[in-house]
């Protein structure tokens, strides 16, 4: 776990306390670099951050092209887990890695609250 400002730790706590969340990160949307993280052992934070940043950027362009405005929240569903992301106005992505049966609605709410904390 990396050292981070107290506000960042508070933001990550909001997300990781949700049952089924395996870890949370704050990622710079511009360059996909980890700002702060609370991840379970074995998760490659830097690589996940880079890919999450890339998906967010491409998805954002697709949403803009479709005329749907800026992306607020996205949810990657996979066979054995999920990645959930909210973009903060400050240019930071709040990312959660979760179990497949996690309460998506609750994680979304906590991600949005965390995004307000780091805004």
């Amino acid at each position, binding site marked *: 776990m990396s050292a981070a400002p107290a506000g960042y730790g508070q933001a990550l706590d909001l997300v990781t306390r949700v049952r089924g969340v395996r870890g949370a990160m704050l990622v710079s949307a511009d360059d996909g670099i980890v700002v702060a993280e609370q991840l379970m052992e074995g998760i490659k934070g830097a690589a996940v951050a880079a890919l999450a940043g890339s998906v967010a950027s491409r*998805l954002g362009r697709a949403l803009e092209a479709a005329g*749907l405005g800026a992306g607020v929240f996205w949810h990657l569903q996979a066979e054995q887990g999920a990645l959930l992301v909210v973009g903060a106005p400050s240019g930071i992505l709040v990312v959660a890695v979760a179990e497949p049966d996690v309460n998506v609605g609750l994680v979304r709410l906590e991600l949005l609250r965390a995004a307000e904390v780091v805004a």
Partner: protein
Amino acid sequence: MADDVKALSTQLAQDPDSLVFLRLGELLRQRRQLDAAHRVALTGLERHPHLADAHDLYARILADKRDYERAFDEWDMARRIAPDHVGALKGLAFLYFKVGDVQQAAVHLEAAQRVAPDDPGIAQALALARGGSGQAAAAEQALAPSPPPVAASAPEPLEEKQVFAGLEGAHEGLLLLDASGRVLGGALKDPGGARDVTDAVAAYLAGVSQEAARTAKLLTLGGWTALAAEGKQGHVHLTALAGDVLLLVVRDRSVPMGRLAVIAQRAAGAARRWLEQQR
């Protein structure tokens, strides 16, 4: 039979709150007077919004009109009001067969059979469902609310324009594309409806799917199945189908994300069937 319609109509006019609208609506539906049946069912529903049979009747009429999206909602509502409603369970099973989700169809049929163990239609459809996806078409016919017209009974190959036939927003909010961003079917317009954005969105999404696959692999999450995103003016749901084919469903913000996932699931079933026929 015309006299029956007249008699029931008179009875309903004399007592608008009576439940005779259920018989009248069903009779009109069977006579294929679907617009009249639709009006009767809707009026009845306005007076009896918590009556499961009213939602079931309305759903059957909608299914006959091939408005499967709303039929699903009505049968779903009937089941919420009366969880053991056999008509609703059979209707939902019919719709699941229609989109190729045999497993869900069987789940609903099993529930229906627990309530009505002697119903031969349920038993027949369930046996066909257990026979595998190859029997799905026969099972669907066994459950259909009314016999299909003769002209429609002969199997016809699906045309590209029919990939999403019968689904809500089939022409403006559904897109089927390959991993290279080439469009296979459907179309997208911007929220104003003036601009075709199909090619631009398809090109960006091809890149998204590659990154999604890499991310899921890196996190050892197995294969990715879907990517849902919420925008400020609308939502999208991207489903990974077999053979690197992607299905995109776009709706405005009035459609909740959960409902969008249901729409995407149904569209995915239709798309898979179309793809199987192309191979």
